[in-house]
């Protein structure tokens, strides 16, 4: 069968297809133009925007924690260091089932109840995206076991880190303080950028005061990330600077002697080098182990410290407020001489009581029947209260306050650790303000023997003693001997010299001679300090009553009193007298060991020097 084949008009068809091809080509170029416009828009017009977006995609700045500066004593003995530890950390936002993970992890590493509760505590207050240490100081075996199994626990990491450590533990607890995790309150105060990689901050003592120098400056790594946020490589490192090392004026061995001699008692000792104002030792007993606080102290241990009757967390050296008692007598005597109200030969008849006109109750001496005829020297040597009652009424509270303030009482000493208390030098205005009462002459009289409202810290006593030893030259006490920068150069601290006390030399001589006799004279209150000493020493004792005023001869019955009601004892001294190398204030609560403590310290310090 043959189909009917229509005759095709080839020429017309060729023209049609050619025409349509050209038409298609035009359409095609229109589409192409759109595409090229789009490319130009993206790559030329919007280039900067997309370029920024692209960089933001892959570039990350990762902060690097600066290494904290070390702390040395004056002889270069390490007081605070950074030790490398392996810790088991958890990133809470990456961990799905927390309780399951904790349960599994405790099979691989020994997790104490303390670790867990500590972790739960930190979980509530940690910074977002911060890892929380579950256990610090993993053993090598634990590290091995854990790293093998880590893939099973997303968000769990074993990290090598530097941990603050205080090798001498209790000895420097109060002075050095410690570092701890940055808490919510501190987070608002710190420089967020500089602390972006830091987890620890100085909480107390030197660690807190010199935080800025010890912390250093944060560094950065520019890290290239892939789409899953995994770091691929480090592109650039912007170096930060490690914290500066610091040398303290403290002397480890002296500090240890002080600690040993004070141990078993509550009290504080501050030793100052009078010529420089450097604090040689500062101890508050009992102390605590600051290392506990670095890892995060457990609630139980903290409660134990907090609730202890001995108050180990309390830094008595700068915050303990004690009546200076008889230790203020040399200062008032000096004021009496300086103002000319008394002279060396002025005497008072001491029959055991001092009666103030229009005051019904007499003031007692600490010896029932008095010391008889008492001149200045004898008044200091035997610590005659009646003499100083008399002097107080003659001086008046203003002049008494004046000399106390000049010796640094009643205000902050300016020492370079925080939280110092200023104590109290009472004025009539002060009494009106705080007690709402008028100032009575009886208050002046009590102030005359360092009782009543006067309150000082052991540090202030030591500073005043150093000023006495310097015969009026005053230097602000300090703990920082020198900074050590990265290039190992030492940058010494310059002491702050305060305005000098201008008092006639002969007056200094009389007072210091009398203080020497406090120890040397057979009837001196510190005569049992020791005989045939290798060094000359000037001192003054003090007894601050804890229980209500007693009759003086009940003194012997101290041992019968409950411990907490026994007197506080104070002792200030410096030695050698001609060339004072150490000025000391010792305060012991409810205990009469001040002389023994002081003797051990002087014997050690001056023995070494010779």
């Amino acid at each position, binding site marked *: 069968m043959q189909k009917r084949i*229509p005759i*095709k*008009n*080839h020429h*017309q*068809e*060729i023209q*049609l*297809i*050619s025409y*349509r*091809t050209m038409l*298609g*080509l035009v359409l*095609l170029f229109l*589409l*192409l133009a*759109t*595409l*090229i416009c*789009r*490319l*130009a828009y*993206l*790559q*030329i017009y*919007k*280039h900067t*925007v*997309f*370029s920024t*977006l*692209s*960089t933001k*995609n*892959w570039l990350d700045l990762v902060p690097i924690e600066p290494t904290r500066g070390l702390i040395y004593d004056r002889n270069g003995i390490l007081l605070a260091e950074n030790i490398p530890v392996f810790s088991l950390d958890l990133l809470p936002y990456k961990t799905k089932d927390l309780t399951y993970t904790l349960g599994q992890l405790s099979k691989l590493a020994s997790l104490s109840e303390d670790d867990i509760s500590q972790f739960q505590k930190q979980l509530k207050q940690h910074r977002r995206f911060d890892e929380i240490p579950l256990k610090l100081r993993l053993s090598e075996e634990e590290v091995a076991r854990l790293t093998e199994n880590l893939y099973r626990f997303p968000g769990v990491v074993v990290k090598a880190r530097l941990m603050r450590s205080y090798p001498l533990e209790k000895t420097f607890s109060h002075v050095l303080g410690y570092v701890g995790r940055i808490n919510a309150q501190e987070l608002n105060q710190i420089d967020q950028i500089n602390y972006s990689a830091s987890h620890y901050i100085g909480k107390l003592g030197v660690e807190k005061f010199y935080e800025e120098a010890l912390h250093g400056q944060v560094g950065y790594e520019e890290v*290239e*990330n*892939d*789409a*899953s946020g995994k770091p*691929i490589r480090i592109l650039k490192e912007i170096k930060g600077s490690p914290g500066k090392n610091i040398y303290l004026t403290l002397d480890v061995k002296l500090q240890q002697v002080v600690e040993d001699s004070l141990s078993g008692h509550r009290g504080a000792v501050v030793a100052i080098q009078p010529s420089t104002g450097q604090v040689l030792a500062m101890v508050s007993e009992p102390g605590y182990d600051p290392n506990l606080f670095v890892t995060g102290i457990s609630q139980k241990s903290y409660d134990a410290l907090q609730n202890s009757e001995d108050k180990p967390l309390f830094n008595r050296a700068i915050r303990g407020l004690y009546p200076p008692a008889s230790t203020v007598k040399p200062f008032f005597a000096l004021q009496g001489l300086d103002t000319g109200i008394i002279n060396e030969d002025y005497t008072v008849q001491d029959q055991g009581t001092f009666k103030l006109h229009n005051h019904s109750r007499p003031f007692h001496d600490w010896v029932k029947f008095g010391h008889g005829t008492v001149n200045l020297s004898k008044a200091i040597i035997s610590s005659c209260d009646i003499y100083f009652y008399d002097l107080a009424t003659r001086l008046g509270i203003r002049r008494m306050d004046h000399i106390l303030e000049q010796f640094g009482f009643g205000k902050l000493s300016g020492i370079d650790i925080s939280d110092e208390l200023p104590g109290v030098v009472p004025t009539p205005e002060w009494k009106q303000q705080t007690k709402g009462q008028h100032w009575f002459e009886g208050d002046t009289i009590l102030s005359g023997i360092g009782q009543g409202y006067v309150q000082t810290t052991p540090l202030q006593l030591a500073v005043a003693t150093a000023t006495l030893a310097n015969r009026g030259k005053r230097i602000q006490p300090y703990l920082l001997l020198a900074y050590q920068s990265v290039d190992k150069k030492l940058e010494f601290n310059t002491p702050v010299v305060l305005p000098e006390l201008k008092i006639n030399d002969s007056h200094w001589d009389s007072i210091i001679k009398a203080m020497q006799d406090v120890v040397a004279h057979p009837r001196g209150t510190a005569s049992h300090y020791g005989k045939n000493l290798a060094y000359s020493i000037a001192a003054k004792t003090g007894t601050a009553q804890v229980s209500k005023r007693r009759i003086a001869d009940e003194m012997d019955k101290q041992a019968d009193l409950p411990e907490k009601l026994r007197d506080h004892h104070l002792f200030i001294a410096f030695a050698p007298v001609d060339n004072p190398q150490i000025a000391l204030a010792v305060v012991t609560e409810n205990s009469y060991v001040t002389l023994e403590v002081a003797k051990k310290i002087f014997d050690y310090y001056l023995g070494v020097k010779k």
Partner: protein
Amino acid sequence: MIMNHYWQKFKKPAYGSRYRSFFQYIHIDVLLLIFLLLLCASGLLILYSSTNQNPKAMHLQFVHFGFAFGIMFVMAQIPPTTLQRTAPWVYAIGLVMLFFVLGIGHIGKGGQRWLNLGFMRFQPAEIMKLAIPLLLAWCYQKIHLPITFKTVLLAIPIIFVPAFLTAKQPDLGTAILLVIAGSSVLFLAGLSFQFMAASLSLFAVLVPFSWYFLHDYQRQRVLTFFNTERDPLGSGYHIIQSKIAIGSGGVFGKGLLNGTQSNLHFLPEHSTDFIFAVCGEEFGFVGNIILISLYMLIVLRGLYITINAQDTFSRLLAGSITFTFFISFFINMGMVTGILPVVGVPLPLVSYGGSSMVTIMASFGILMSIQTYRKLVTT
């Protein structure tokens, strides 16, 4: 002299009185071959970077190219008249395989596009890219052009049955290309402008209904196209990252291997559908223009062959092949730059993968056959 002697051997007369060159003898169009080689070389360079210099991927892509160029060479040897005779059979076999694949897809779970022939996996939809224009050209060869309303109606099932089956797989990208391949034949065959306008309006009316036939992920893509920021980490992620890659390239690009978007895996599918973004990131606007120019050289050569083809069948076929090639890279670039919704169309001859490459090179083989089997008629 000796060379000349061998040269003479190939210069034997065929189909006419003129002597033919060596390349004509082996039915290779030299210009088209050069353009294709240039494009493939550029593609390999981009792929080298986008795969992070993965030697295995490069090696495989070389194998793909070798195979595809082999297919092109084979296709170039088949005279257009043979193609014309076998056109209905090719279409019929393709359609059967398409149904077959769909059947397997129903048995297995999820989408099924592949037919495993043992030694290679094979995508029947790819055959249809050639089979549809072949069959339509075969049909219209037999009738008077321009086509009438009746003859157009004949084309509708020829185009839409395989397109529907392909879209069902689901492979929307290929389905669209099938429709383009068929429509371009109709366009060349003189489809009336009224009809075009009518069908475009019909399309516009039908589009909202097509929503119900789309897969969920396809709906997401469409929504994302209209508002990229809708779901920046989900369906919008691709296009946002791709725009960042292209935009951050700037005029001259970040340089080979320096593309952070692709090398650090921010850009998904950076070796397949989104490879154009890698080109844009590393070689910038200039690089993109060069790449587009290479494509356009091929297209222009294709259209030249179309116009110079000697019969209606060849012209319709060559024109359709060329337009489809243009549309396929245009759709890809359009979706990567965010002016078209994301449909899975690879960048021809540059994206990693062998399946579409084989079809494309086969179609260029046909172009070469059309060009070299011409009877040299002097007019």
